[in-house]
């Protein structure tokens, strides 16, 4: 693992509606505008959820950690974090290793570790109204 790789994630930015997104190619997934520009996000994000696969697919070590991370620009990523994986609410640095996003605990999260309840993180939809 290239643990010394600089943090940073290549993203796309829509110049029309200003949404940021993955992947960097193609039109804006929100408004369809072709006026988009690639840029590099610092890759600092918050873990939304994490786990370790005890039965990983062939080619991956056991246990194989996985996490959802929301980076500061509001873009979500599936990442392979360091093992054992950081828990929900922890701050991580994400970087790209080929087509795989990797993450490690950020120095900024040191003080937050070991807190009881994981904070609510991530953008959630409003409460569901039952179908009529």
């Amino acid at each position, binding site marked *: 693992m290239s643990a010394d790789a600089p943090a940073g994630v290549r993203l796309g930015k829509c110049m029309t509606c200003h949404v940021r997104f*993955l992947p960097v190619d193609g039109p804006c*997934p929100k408004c369809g505008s072709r006026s988009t520009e690639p840029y590099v996000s610092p890759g600092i994000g918050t873990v*939304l*959820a*994490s*786990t*370790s*696969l*005890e*039965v*990983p*697919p*062939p*080619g*991956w070590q056991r246990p*194989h950690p*996985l*996490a*959802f991370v929301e980076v500061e620009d509001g873009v*979500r*990523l*599936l*990442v*392979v974090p360091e093992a054992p994986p950081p828990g*929900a609410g922890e701050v991580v640095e994400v970087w790209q290793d080929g*087509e*795989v*996003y990797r993450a490690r605990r950020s120095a900024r999260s040191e003080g937050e570790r070991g807190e009881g*309840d*994981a904070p*609510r*993180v*991530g953008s*959630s*939809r409003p*409460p*569901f109204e*039952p*179908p*009529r």
Partner: protein
Amino acid sequence: MTVRVASVGLGRFGKRPEGLVELAAEAAGLALEGIGRKTVDHLVVGTMLGHGPHGPFALLPRLAGRLGLESATGVRVEAASATGAMAFHEAVHAVQAGEAVRALVVAAEKMTDQPTPALTRELTAALHESEIAHGATMPGLGSLVSQRYFLHHELPAEVSARVTVHDREMASRNPNAHFQTPVTAEEVGASRPVALPLRLLHCAPISDGAAAVVVEKGRGPATVLGLGQGFDALRLIDRSDLSSFVATRLAARRAYEASRLTRKDVGMIELHDAFAPLGFIHLEDLGVCGPGEGPTWYDRGWVRPDGRVPVNPGGGLLGRGHPVGVSGLAGIGEVALQLRGEAGATSVAHRPKVGLAHSMAGLGAHNFVTILGETGG
């Protein structure tokens, strides 16, 4: 045109020595027993993996030949783990369109003859390519969604054992279920970790099995009242919501609107609970209870056969088993049996007038809702 379920054939789920065609033919034979010598002029077959000596290839003529349906027309469908539900919807559409008078829907899956790593690779193929590139699996992503649910509603992950305990108790009443014995919450909590908080007993087993349903023009206790389906982004991180399934809400809304019913009319439910916490999420997405209230419904026994809305009386995916392409049709078949008063050992306390079957493809990329019941007026 009004379409009804005319008969149901549910074979035994579990480790079976038979091959794909034999399993399909057995379930089809059971369903055809129920309708005598009436003509079936359309055959819809569903299988996700299609394992067998011939793969999924030419499954229709092979099966048509076995069943003496050479004069029928046919189609094969695939929608990952919602294949069985899609097959049913296609058969209903064919009858509604007047293309068929009576259609036989068969779903079959052969899984236990594969080594687990090979099977995992195949099931994982239903995920997005970038998820596969990160070494994700169904239980892995199922675990992440479950955690988002627990965090969002501030619930302890341990509550998910209730779904397994319920399904296994229901399965112990069902002679066709993969698992014939109940389990305790302690046993669930002590089972080996798969992708925490998911443990082995929170995950549906690998099963062989088949199901068949005959649909025809007409009315009855198991009339098709409403069908709905919904898509969501295949890649989970692209979804607006990581703690429940938009595709279920979309499918449910469409099925409720088509049936002109609300969730208050539903008398029993079959849920696609491939991972225990999903039982809560589905119940909430279907509007049966409010967000975060699923665990309470299981805890207070409101999902039991004598509860407010019986859920998975046949054992669900965690108890009856999960031959992937079959579960959607098995759920619909179970609902039809309950409505027709033919459920036998798995019968709910009071015969329902309306039942709902829910099915999910992959991890919620293409979900289906089927509402059956008595036609009013």
